[in-house]
């Protein structure tokens, strides 16, 4: 029963609220109105610039990621090489120290490579020397 009356009340209320809002929007001080116009001009300047394609927007982050990946790769590779070199050096030093003690057999890696190459010769020499010595004893 009250619905139609309320509806009319609402209509009147809304019309009044809206009229006040519109009137208030018309009565903005000139300084603020000028700043609003300037804001609009600034925004519209973006219209003059061509819209950047979506791909271009992705280009910068992708490039940055690629650069970081490359830098990490470069930083990681020398470290790996250096660490393996350091390990080898440490092993050879350990071998030298071990032989210096004189208690253990020499490390084949630290032995004179020339000697390793002529093992047959030294074997033959040793055999020959033994044979010569036994013949001389007879």
């Amino acid at each position, binding site marked *: 029963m*009250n*619905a*139609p009356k*309320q*509806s009319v*009340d*609402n*209509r009147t*209320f*809304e*019309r*009044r*609220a*809206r009229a*006040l*809002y*519109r*009137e*208030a*929007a*018309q*009565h*903005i*001080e000139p300084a*603020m*109105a000028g*700043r*609003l*116009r300037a*804001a*609009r001009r*600034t*925004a*519209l300047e*973006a*219209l003059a610039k061509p*819209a950047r394609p979506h791909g271009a927007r992705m280009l910068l982050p992708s490039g940055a990621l690629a650069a970081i990946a490359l830098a990490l790769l470069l930083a990681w590779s020398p470290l790996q090489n250096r660490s393996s070199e350091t390990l080898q050096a440490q092993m050879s030093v350990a071998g030298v120290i071990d032989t210096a003690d004189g208690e253990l057999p020499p490390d084949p890696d630290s032995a004179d490579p020339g000697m390793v190459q002529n093992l047959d010769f030294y074997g033959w020499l040793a055999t020959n020397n033994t044979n010569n010595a036994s013949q001389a004893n007879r």
Partner: protein
Amino acid sequence: MESQDARSGDADDDAMNSVVSTLDTDLMAEDTRAVPATMDAFLSHVERRAFRLAELNLGNREDALDAVQDAMLRLVKHYRDKSAEEWSPLFWGILRRRIVDLQRRRKVRSIMVGWLGGGRDDDGDELPSWDPADAGPGPLDRLQDAQSYADMAAAVKKLPQRQREAFMLRVLEGLDVAETAQAMGCSEGSVKTHLSRAMQHLRDQLEAWR
């Protein structure tokens, strides 16, 4: 008892539907809703109302100007290729989000100020508030209905956020239900509910208007 409640609930629903349908017809008819053809014309058409709407929400003219400026920039940058009919809900939606952002930022600042110094300086005097009330004089003071507008603004500021948004976009700005829902990022049903509650609160607070 339950049947009485149900009947009164139905009456409320009828009243609400009546309000919404009245708004749909009357406000749409009242507003010619001529769509400006160019972005410049559109922004020129809405800039002052957008400023007043932001001011009503934020209570500060500098913040309101920032919000409007940002909304204009975003609309031009991101939606320039949309059809002119879509600009209105898009613009009001952007402005709404910008206002919410500014309100959140203010709240964070207030909390930070509270943590850091309790809102007082070394001499015990109160620091300037981060929620400034801008009561700068303007031509509005010369309005015949300045007091009525001030009363309405005060009542609107007391509304919960979503009800305020629904009232401003639907009643003051005259968007239709679908456009209001798009701008508010919710369903049309929610718009109707928020609007109905907002109207009820405002009618209670602005008794003198009746």
